[in-house]
């Protein structure tokens, strides 16, 4: 006898512990299985792209802090690179090195939150994320030293960085770089080989190589699917061409691969920081750039490998003091487009960890 059953709609979010902000998934469930899913976003829209048109080129930098608030340094970097490309401004050597160090530290900090939040979504009650926040604190202390801020740094400037690092920064960074590999090993010992974690995340939420490329996914999500694509190597910006590092790639494209790729990327970032610390020259950290910049008429697109993927800024100038148009290519938004295909057929519990493994930041999606 066939029972007459009905599917029902479950609203996951906008206020929900695991939506990493104000994201909403309108899931149609058949029992526990998700048969349809509609992502809804826009709850955090602040009109940053429009606001940018009303400000001077320097004045936009604080706005970029508010995009992906877990990786403000990377946002700063992507934006100033675009302006420098537009106006043809050269950057001093020391500033380039400082930028690379900050961007890689930011990558570690962002991945720590990503991995910790993912494990928390798996149900490891707060323990992994609190350990990872402990290490993120140390990175925030370093950022605090150079910029006086702990979340929205506003550190990069067009033509360099806002100020040179204090004397105690490099020894502190050295200490951090020496200690961090041990901590990453500690996370691995805590859960990486855990039977329940493997059962929950291996083979779950597979994003195929073809689909990943088609939806224009980038960053760890794309690399976990087995595509060796990293803008630091594919289109080297700043001085990334001078450093040796590897691009970790996954095999299957499941949640575990995304987790694994992030952990490996932290190790690679430490490698880059170590090399940069050895090579950093002394000198000026900022070239002579007027406060009010009037780039020539034209347009420029500049992209970097942000922690969450390819972060791009497209700027159009009409030779005024403010950008005529500013468009932001947010990696979180594009990575999220594959969400429905990844989740359908899995259960509610899987939906949460698949969503968590993409590692999104709502500030960037809604802009």
């Amino acid at each position, binding site marked *: 006898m066939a029972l007459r059953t009905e599917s*029902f709609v*479950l*609203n996951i979010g906008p206020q*929900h*512990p*695991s939506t990493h902000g104000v994201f909403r998934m309108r899931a149609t469930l058949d029992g*526990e*299985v998700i*048969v349809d899913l509609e992502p809804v976003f826009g709850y955090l829209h602040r009109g940053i792209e429009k606001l940018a048109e009303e400000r001077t080129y320097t004045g936009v930098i604080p706005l970029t802090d508010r995009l992906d608030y877990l990786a403000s340094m990377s946002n700063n970097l992507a934006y100033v690179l675009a302006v420098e490309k537009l106006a043809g401004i050269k950057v001093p050597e020391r500033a380039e090195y400082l930028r690379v160090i900050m961007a890689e530290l930011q990558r570690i900090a962002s991945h720590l939150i990503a991995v910790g939040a993912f*494990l*928390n*979504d*798996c*149900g*490891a*009650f*707060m*323990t992994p994320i*609190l*350990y990872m926040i*402990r290490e993120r604190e140390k990175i925030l202390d370093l950022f605090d030293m150079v910029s006086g801020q702990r979340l929205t740094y506003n550190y990069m400037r067009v033509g360099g960085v806002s100020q040179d690092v204090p004397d105690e920064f490099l020894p502190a960074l050295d200490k951090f770089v020496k200690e961090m590999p041990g901590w990453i090993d500690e996370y691995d010992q*805590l*859960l990486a080989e*855990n039977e*329940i*974690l493997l*059962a*929950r995340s291996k*083979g*779950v939420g597979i994003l195929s190589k073809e689909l990943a490329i088609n939806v224009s996914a980038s960053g760890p999500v794309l690399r976990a699917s087995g595509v060796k694509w990293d803008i630091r190597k594919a289109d080297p910006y700043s001085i990334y061409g001078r450093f040796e590092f590897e691009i970790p790639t996954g095999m299957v494209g499941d949640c575990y691969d995304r987790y694994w790729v992030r952990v490996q990327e932290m190790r690679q970032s430490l490698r880059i920081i170590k090399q940069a610390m050895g090579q950093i020259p002394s000198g000026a950290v900022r070239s002579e750039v007027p406060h009010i910049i009037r780039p020539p008429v034209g347009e420029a697109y500049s992209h970097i490998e942000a922690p969450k993927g390819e972060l791009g800024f497209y700027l159009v100038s009409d030779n005024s003091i403010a950008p005529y148009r500013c468009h932001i290519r947010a990696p979180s938004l594009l990575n999220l487009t594959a969400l429905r295909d990844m989740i*359908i*057929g*899995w*259960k*509610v*519990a*899987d939906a*949460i960890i698949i969503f968590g493994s993409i590692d999104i930041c709502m500030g960037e999606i809604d802009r």
Partner: protein
Amino acid sequence: MILNFSRSSMQYLQTLPPDWPGGFWWHWLVFTVIIIIFLLALVMGFIWFERRALGRMQARLGPNRVGPLGLLQPVADALKVLIKEDIVPAKADKLVHWLAPVVAFVPVLMIFAVIPFQDGALLADLNIGILYVVAISSVATVGIFMAGWGSSNKYSLLGAMREVASVVSYEIPLVITIAGVVLIAGTLSLNQIVLAQDVPFILLQPLGFLLFFIGACAEINRSPFDLLEADSELTAGFHTEYSGMKFAMFYLVEYAEALAMSAIITTLFLGGWRGPLLPPWLWFLIKVVVVFFVMVWTRTTLPRVRIDQLMALAWKFLLPLALINLLITAIEVLTWPVALPWVMILVNIAIMAVLVVLWSKLFKLGWGRVEI
């Protein structure tokens, strides 16, 4: 002080003529009060203990502001929920919503009627004690399902359905493991089971203990089986729509269940109140806290399993092993010479190791995707 009190009250009870008509009611009154005080005090202690232990394991301090070492934190929490507004959802089934916390709480309290705190110190020495525990403990599920259904909230309903599914599945291996203990002890009375434990049954029944502990964690929804209130998936599960004192009741039930299960594990496997030097009730308390500590430990460490994996674990892993355990125990009870318990311990531990390793090689979890 408590020791003296319990001893003197016991002596007083024993001096009464056995046919004194008031004796039964006197005994009933004293132990009801003792059980309620014991339960409330220990639940508060457990809440504090869990939060402190969690804090330590998570590289933070835990509550330390209210009272010395934060000891009064549960009191402050209780006070807070008491003065909170009691919100009932507009579409809730009012009666069911109101009744659910009570239905969930009473059976947990009733379990303690047959738990011996020391020799003969229990409310009712039922000769079917453990059967009574098994029967009563599943009634709390009804209360939880009522909460999930009555709230008219989809998260609550999902949590409640998970609860029913997991309890129905885990009762079976749980009862079969208990049967192993009963075979060795030769009695169903919990007090007699403790008296039979010259060697704690954890040594004679290592596999049984392992299965029972896993099953117990699932039965009372402790991590890694805390699916019904999986906070990262279902916000708060079945008690999402509860606030104020009703919520506090569910909170109480959760810890009282953990306490009850710790007490049952202590009684069945760890020799109950038996132990050298220290007074029996203190031994009982220490063992209960140790068992609870292991539960806290797993909670801080392990991720949560998925609902189909939970079912698979019960039916494909725990149930076959529980049956094998019962068979081996039965053979041993029939054929093993009484003089050689220590050899039996070694044999049993070896059997456990071999079985668990072999069976976990056989045990595979599916990928879990459903084609739509």
